[in-house]
């Protein structure tokens, strides 16, 4: 394998690092023996490599990682002023930011659910009560648990009650309304006194 100058010069940094294969290294050294221009370039690169960067000291190396960490934390805090690192609480380390990010969505969901439940409950109660206010005596809403099956028709459907108390004259030809209307004031007073004495209420 034969290399020209350009290829040799591209390989010189790898040669200095010792990163070439045995075969390539031998070929390169063979070329260098005959080529002063490439030898000069190798010499220059060797001079370059020999220039050491001055050591800034152990203090710099030991503190740089912490400095970078601190600088990152400060930049984060500057971007989010409300977020501060809270340390040492019961031996734990956590940041308000992570607390916000992790807990806030859960709290928001809980609040939304609570709101929905409250709204739904209130609406349901109102819906149940509305008809009662509109029609308090509706038979569809009133409960008759304390009445027997026989009582209910008497009250709600009895034509007899309607005839006796509401109609001027029922199908039987008799009416309490008509009878009371025919009484004189003295007879009415006597009637109420009699009712009071017998402790009869209503009617």
């Amino acid at each position, binding site marked *: 394998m034969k290399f020209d100058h350009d290829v040799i010069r591209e390989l010189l940094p790898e040669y200095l690092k010792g990163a070439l294969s045995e075969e390539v290294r031998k070929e390169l050294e063979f070329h260098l023996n005959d080529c002063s221009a490439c030898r000069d370039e190798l010499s220059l690169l060797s001079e370059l490599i020999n220039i050491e960067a001055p050591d800034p000291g152990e203090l710099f*190396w030991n503190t740089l990682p912490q400095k*970078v960490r601190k600088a990152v934390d400060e930049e984060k805090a500057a971007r989010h002023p409300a977020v501060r690192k809270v340390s040492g609480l019961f031996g734990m380390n956590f940041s308000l930011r992570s607390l916000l990010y992790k807990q806030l969505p859960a709290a928001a969901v809980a609040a939304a659910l609570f709101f929905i439940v409250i709204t739904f409950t209130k609406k349901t109660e109102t819906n149940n009560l509305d008809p009662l206010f509109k029609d308090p005596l509706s038979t569809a809403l009133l409960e008759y648990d304390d009445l027997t099956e026989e009582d209910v028709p008497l009250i709600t459907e009895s034509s007899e009650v309607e005839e006796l108390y509401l109609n001027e004259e029922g199908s039987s030809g008799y009416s309490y309304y008509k009878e009371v209307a025919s009484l004189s004031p003295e007879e009415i007073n006597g009637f109420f006194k009699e009712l009071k004495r017998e402790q009869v209420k209503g009617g």
Partner: protein
Amino acid sequence: MRLNMQMDEDIELVESYLGGSDEAMERLVMKYQKPVYAFIYRMTNNIEDAKDLTQKTFLNAVKGVKGFRRESSFKTWLYRIAANTCLNDVRSRRDETVLEESFAGNQRGALSALIEEEKSRHIKDGIDKLSERQRLAVILRVYDGLSCIETAKVMGCSEGAVKAHYHNGVQRLREILKERGYEV
């Protein structure tokens, strides 16, 4: 094999940091702080600048680590950040006043005087005189041992462009040294 293990370890540390481990980030800094510092020193030729820019490089890397897409090794990605951090610093300095530039020049001269060997000093000065791209290519290839492909990834250019910058940079260095009486 060893390179792959190193890359796997770097990826694991990056994943750990993204998972919330600050210790993983510190381990990455400790692992790469010396080569990154040496690279930046060779770019700036100034120890204080190199220290500041090394810290800035790691800060930029940590802030941008979510953008590390594993298309190259972590080391190559980190060198790219170091190179950009250096170039941005150099460019921002160009806008500074003549007085400040003069002070920086004196400071650099004083630091360079600490280098005992005259030839080494001339070589360092010669590196300073290379264009940004030539300097990057020479330093990354010669000092940091990056391949042409890795150097191209760091510099964000083609492999052919790296070869051209490297070749022109070395030729320019030789000319500078010849001008100063050195035969290389």
